[in-house]
Structure formats: C-alpha cells, structure tokens
C-alpha cells in the first residue's frame, strides 16, 4: 500500500471565513465543531489516562509512597470524572456532530449555533473542573460524589465546589446537544430516509440523546440540591435534619445507569457501521438491532438501584432491580450475536477499524458477563466496592466504548481530513491496546475476588494482591505506549497520509457518497434515499446510475475493494458553496461568549462561598449580564443571509 504524500486531490476551501483561529472560534459548521470536539476530548482522554497511570504507579507494589491519601483521592476522582464527562461522552459527540447530518443527508444540524454553544460550554466546563488539580484542590470524593460525604459538613473545602459547578456546566452542554440532535434526526432526514433506513449509528445516537435529555435532569436536580446545601444552607443532605442518606444515591444512579448506556450505545452504533463495511455484507438483523437498542434504552431507566444492593433496600427491591438488570443482558446479547452473524460468511478485511470493532465484540462480552455476575445481589454483596467492579466497568468502558471510538476514528479520519491513517501503526496501536487492556484489567478480577477494595491508596503485602497489581501496572504502561503511537500516527497522517477517495473503504452509507474531506455544504444536492446502503446500490446497479444523489458519484465505478485503500485516481475538486448557490449559516462568536459567561458566572458562586461575598456577587451579576447580552445578539441575528 503506497503512502502518497502529495497534496490533497483538491485544495481545501480557503475562503477568508474558513481559516485562522477566529474562524474556529466562530464556526457553526458541524464538521468543524466535530474536529474541535475531537482534539479537546483526545486531550482530556490523555489527561485522564495520565492520572490513571500515576494511580497505577502508586499501586505497583504494597505501601506505595509516591502519593499521599489526599492527592490519591483527587487523582482517582478526576480520573473517573475526566474519562466519563470529558473524554468518552465528548468523543461520542465527535461522531454525533460529524456523522448525524452526513448519514441522514442534511446540510447541518437543526440548530447550528446551539451546536457551537454545546462545544464551548463543554470546553469551559472541562476547564473549570480540571483546573483545580494544578493547585492540588481537585474534587476528592469519587466520581459519583456521594452525599452526605460531599456536604459542607464533611467536605468543607473548595474541592467539591468545583466538582458540583463543573458537572452542572457540562450538563448544560449535553442537554443542549441532546435537543439539537433529536430535532436533527427527527426532522432533517433526506427524502426517502425513513426511520428504518437510518444507519444504525444514527439510530443509536437518537436513543442516546433521549437517554441524555431524560436522565440528566435527575443529576441536575441532585446537583442543585448539593449546590444549595453548599452555597445557601439548605438541608437536603443533612442527616441531622432528617434527610435521607440515600437520596443522593437514588438521584445519582437514576442518572448514572442510563449514563452507562449513554457511554456505550454510540460505541455499539460505530461498530454496527464498521463490521458491515469490512464484511462486505449488510448488517445482520437490522430491525432487531434497532429494537434492541431501544429496549436497552428503556430498561436502562429501571435498573439504577443495582448500584445500591449493599445499602440494604430489602429483598423485594433487590429482586426487582436484579431481574431488570439481568433482562438487559438479552438485547445486549442479541447485538453481540448479530455482529458475529454479520461477519459470518462475509469477505472480511482486517483493517485497523475492523480490529477495534472485533475488539469491542470480544471485550464487551467479558465485561457483560461480569456485569451479569454482580447483577445478582448475593454475588454483588461479595464484589461490591472491590477491584472486581473496577475490572467490570473498565471492560465495558475501555473494552467497549474506547475500542469502538478508536475504531471510529480510523474509519472516519479520511472523511474528516481527506487522508488515511497509517494502517501499520494503527495495527500496532490496536494490538498494544488489546493486550495492554487485558493485562491491566483482567488481573483486577482476581485482586477483587481476593478482597482488594477499590479506592484505597495503598495496601499491605501478604494478601496475595502483589502479582495482580504488578501486572496491572505493566499493562497500563503498554496503554501509554499505544496511545503515543496513535498520537504520532494521527498527526503524521494528518500531514502526509495517503490521499483518500470519497469512499476509501467501500462502505455503503450516505456519508461515503460525498468527497473526502466532506465539503462545507455536505451535499451539493440533497439526495433521495431508497435503501439502507444507498452507496452500495449505486455501485452495484447500472440502471440506478441516472438517479444518483450526488453528481460526483456518477464517476464512481466498482473498484477493487481489497486492501487498496489509497487512491491513485484524482477526483474533481468539489465546487464551493457560492458556486452552487448554497447559503450556509453565518459564523458567530455569540455562542462562545455565552458559554464563557456561563462558566464565569458559576465561578462567582465559588468566590462567594470561599473568598469574598461581595466580589462573588458582583462577578456573578456581571457574567449574568454577559450571558443575557450575548444570547440577545444571538437571538436577534438571523442564522443566514437573505437569499
């Protein structure tokens, strides 16, 4: 496979509005927002990974000395918080942003400026929650911040203030994106793109957005109570005043369990795109894949208390939640078998993306099985709060979400940047991830079964945990090496990767019918869709050629889809939006200013409680005015010019 280091087949648009820092700050283009999400969330992914490696180094041998208990708590809390809210969720948002409009045949999302707003709120919220760690003031009560531990009585310091406020800001980002994507998917599909023709990724994205908009209010309210307890003296979590010590746990997990599916359903969607592409077969059991995704979403709301078996809810509650939990194994198992059946008899090509997808199928199954184990209360009482649980959720989150997300990056890199990532380095990345991941997390099952509690910052020797911890730490170093290879590959391919054609993988969904990288207007003409894999139809039927959605597609002929993913043919440069007479939304800085003001106004609360009341109030009022003014300008400026 030749790596051609020539210029792209066509020069990317260089209109004045599309270059420079300012164009990124003001952009409302879903593809550029996706790229910003990608860079930011990869940064946070590595930041959270660094925290994990420091933790693992502390635990490499008994009685580790590099961290004290306080700093360990901060690193552990921030590792969880960072990975869930700042890495995996926004890494999924990369694909929501980039793919949803392309897969349904739309020019952009329903509310482009709200989309930019979501990104900026995420960035500033991430900064608010991450910044304190540089002053050793990071949140320190675990990623699920159990109250009353987090009430002012037990956590008087500023640490939890940042956590509460940071999560509240991040919630705004997710909710705004949720309303946006739901509207986009329901209302902006191209003609003929009925629901049962939608690509599975878009389907899973739709289910995920419903989970987000229905689950996030629960944590929003739980955080509001905690905020009020901390800042205004309410007593929601004050046990002495008669408060229920389980209120937080219930509210948090009513959000927290759907959150698990918010993290993993987009990954299922990506895998459902990768496997058919590299099996040269349509997805096996498409309708069942859709229904099982919806069913997972529904059941996800009925299982929250399986995180709380150990608190003593009584046999009836334990039994009901256990039954609901075990039920979820059914739709999840259906998905696993459908992916295997898709590969069965297919013309498999083991590209890096495909390897990552197969990695998910195998690793998620392991995590799913240990999940079924502690879905049963008697077993859970042995396993709760041990490393067994840590092993379980890393198998589903790393083995599931992260594997699929990296698979998705390898698959969609050409559509984003017009070049292919290097496959050799990609395979190194995959195998080091796959082996390193198992080395890191598999021994944790044994350590947990031997009684090693999670969240401890050191342990005594002689309990049989030494070997397992040593292996885990070595495995985590392999993950660091693999991530470094990925980063090198990413930037190298960005600069000099092989030039990609419009459909380098021979995939079938709509996003592959347009040039790579996708032009700013996506589709020169909105396509009409007649099947689940429109691009495959065009390539395999002669008589369909005159009904091609995109003019450029007419030139595509059946290519040999072996490992030849690099292009030697030069595709015509796509026309600019102006030449085609397409009116695109105008850039605006107002969403970024509104987002910044929201973060600043929340910091005013921290000032109010910890520094100076007057300064805090003035600070909050000034930023509130900024929010109002920026939103006023946003609302009173038309989205696009008259035409």
């Amino acid at each position: 496979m030749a790596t051609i280091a020539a210029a792209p087949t066509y020069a990317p648009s260089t209109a004045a509005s599309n270059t420079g820092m300012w164009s990124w700050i003001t952009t409302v283009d879903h593809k550029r927002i996706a790229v910003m999400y990608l860079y930011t969330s990869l940064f946070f992914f590595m930041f959270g990974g660094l925290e994990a490696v420091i933790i693992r180094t502390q635990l490499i041998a008994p009685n580790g000395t590099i961290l004290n208990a306080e700093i360990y708590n901060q690193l552990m809390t921030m590792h969880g918080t960072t990975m869930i809210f700042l890495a995996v969720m926004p890494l999924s948002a990369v694909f929501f942003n980039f793919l949803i409009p392309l897969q349904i045949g739309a020019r952009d999302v329903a509310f482009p400026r709200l989309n930019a707003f979501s990104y900026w709120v995420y960035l500033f919220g991430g900064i608010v929650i991450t910044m304190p760690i540089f002053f050793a003031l990071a949140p320190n009560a675990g990623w699920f911040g159990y109250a009353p531990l987090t009430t002012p009585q037990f956590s008087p310091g500023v640490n939890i203030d940042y956590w509460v406020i940071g999560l509240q800001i991040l919630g705004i980002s997710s909710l705004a994106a949720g309303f946006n994507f739901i509207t986009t998917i329901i209302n902006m599909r191209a003609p003929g793109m009925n629901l049962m023709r939608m690509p599975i990724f878009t389907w899973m994205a739709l289910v995920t957005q419903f989970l987000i908009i229905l689950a996030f209010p629960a944590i929003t309210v739980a955080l509001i109570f905690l905020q009020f307890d901390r800042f205004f003296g309410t007593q929601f979590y004050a046990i002495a005043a008669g408060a229920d010590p389980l209120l937080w746990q219930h509210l948090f997990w009513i959000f927290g369990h759907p959150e698990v599916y918010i993290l993993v359903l987009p990954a299922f969607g990506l895998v459902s795109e990768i496997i058919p592409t590299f099996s040269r077969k349509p997805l096996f059991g498409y309708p069942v894949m859709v229904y099982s995704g919806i069913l997972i979403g529904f059941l996800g709301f009925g299982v929250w208390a399986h995180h709380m078996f150990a608190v003593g809810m009584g046999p009836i509650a334990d039994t009901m939640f256990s039954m609901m939990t075990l039920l979820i194994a059914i739709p999840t198992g259906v998905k696993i078998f459908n992916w295997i059946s898709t590969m069965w008899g297919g013309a498999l090509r083991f590209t890096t993306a495909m390897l990552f997808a197969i990695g998910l199928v195998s690793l998620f199954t392991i995590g799913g099985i240990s999940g079924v184990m502690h879905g049963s209360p008697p077993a859970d009482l042995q396993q709760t709060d041990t490393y067994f649980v840590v092993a379980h959720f890393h198998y589903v989150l790393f083995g599931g979400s992260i594997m699929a997300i990296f698979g998705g990056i390898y698959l969609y890199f050409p559509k984003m940047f017009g070049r292919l990532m290097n496959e050799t380095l990609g395979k190194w990345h995959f195998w080091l991830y796959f082996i390193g991941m198992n080395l890191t997390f598999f021994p944790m099952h044994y350590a947990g079964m031997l009684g090693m509690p999670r969240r401890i910052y050191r342990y005594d020797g002689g309990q049989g945990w030494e070997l397992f911890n040593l292996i885990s730490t070595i495995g985590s170093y392999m993950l660091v090496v693999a991530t470094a290879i990925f980063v090198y590959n990413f930037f190298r391919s960005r600069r000099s990767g092989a030039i990609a054609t419009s459909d380098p993988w021979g995939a079938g969904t709509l996003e592959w019918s347009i040039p790579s990288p996708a032009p700013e207007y996506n589709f020169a003409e909105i396509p009409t869709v007649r099947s689940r894999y429109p691009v495959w139809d065009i390539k395999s039927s002669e008589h369909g050629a005159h009904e091609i959605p995109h003019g450029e597609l007419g030139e595509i002929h059946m290519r040999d889809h072996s490992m030849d993913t690099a292009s030697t043919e030069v595709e015509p440069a796509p026309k600019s939006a102006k030449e085609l007479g397409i009116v695109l939304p105008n850039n605006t800085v107002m969403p970024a200013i509104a987002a910044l003001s929201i973060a600043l106004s929340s910091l005013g609360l921290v000032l109010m409680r910890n520094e100076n009341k007057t300064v805090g109030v003035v600070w909050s009022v000034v930023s509130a005015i900024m929010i109002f003014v920026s939103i006023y300008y946003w609302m009173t400026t038309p989205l696009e010019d008259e035409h």
Partner: protein
Amino acid sequence: MATTAHAGTVDPHKGHHYTTTGLDNRKIGLWAFLGSECMLFGTLIATYLSYKGKSVAGPRPHEWVCAATNVVSDSPIANCVGQMFTPILDIPVTSASTFVLLMSSLAMVLSHNAVVHKNVPKNTFWERVRGSSKLWLAMTAFLGMAFLAFQTYEFTSFYHEGLKLSTNLFGSSFFTLTGFHGGHVTFGVLWLWTLFAIDVKRGLGPDDATNVDLLALYWHFVDVVWIAIFTLVYLIK
C-alpha cells in the same frame, strides 16, 4: 416514487425549509426540551414528597408544631409553651393564584388565535377585542405577573412565620420546588413581553403563528406543572 411525497411544500432537493415531518425544527426541539423538563420537575416533586413529614423541627405544611417540644398535631396544641407554628400553607390564597395562572393560559390561547386570524376583517367591537393580539399577550403577561406577585406574598409571609430555605427539610424542598416553578413563570413573562414588543414594533401576523405557538406550548406546560404542584403539595395532606 412515493418516498419523496412528504409534507412541506418546498422542493426537498433544494434542502431549504424542507423538514421531514413538515413541522418547524424549533417546535420539535421545544417538545424535547419539555420532555426533559418533565423529568426535572418530576425529580423535584418526588424529593418533596419523599421528604414530607421528615422535618425534625420548625413549621410544617399542614400541621401545628410546638417550637419548644417539637410536638406535631393536626389541631392547635393547647399546652404549648412559647412559640407555636401554625400550618404554613394558605390554601384559599393559593387557590386564587392557581385560578389566575389557569386564566393566563386562556389568554394565551386567545393571543395565538388573534395572531393566526390577524388578517380576517373585524366588524364589531367584540371581534376587535378578540382579535387584538397585543391585548391578549399583555393580558397573559399580567396574569403571569399576578401569579408571581401571589408567590412573592406567599414566600414573604412564610418567611415571617419562621420558614426559611434553611429551616428544615420542608423549607428546603418547598422553596426549591416552587421557586423553580416561579423561575419558569418569570422566564415565560419575559418571553411574553418580548413578543409583545415585537407586536408593537411591527405587528404579529399569521406568519408569526409558530413563534406564538412555541411560547404557548411552553406557557401551558408551566401551567400544567403548577396543577401538579398545587394538587400534590397544597391539596393532599
């Protein structure tokens, strides 16, 4: 080619203003938002209900409490020494404010109706009254503001009777729940005056029906939430 026979009159291939359902994007976005709001108020109401009767001190919604001994009773406590808290909730006053808010929804419907039929000729005085979108938008806003005035009065008198945000679980959960609802009404009132200002400036016509419709959807939702709060918090003991 049945697949292209969609609602929406604009050529779908031009991509503009065409939507899959034929509905305005904002309307679908607002419905999704209201779904999310249901969960928000549902969580607030559930917390209020689960904390009902759990307060260890201070005033209660429906009962008398003797401050010194924390004895709780359904009737005035005879032998209470010192301060005795009376039931906090004033149902007749809140019934009046509930009526005001329900009437504001009627005015909202009339505003929408007036905007939709702006171009229909009006001959009689009553037709002109009914067709005045300015009148009904202002009426809705005033009724909303009257509701907020009732709430302000209610909060102030509760405060003077000894119930603060930090007094007990009842104070925390009651003020947070009703305060959030009041915040939603306030936002709706601002939205109403914004539309009123546009109406004064250039006049709202049938083309603006969706704009008014969105506000009406939000306003009715806030109204329905109040009906739930009034029933569950005030009426059920």
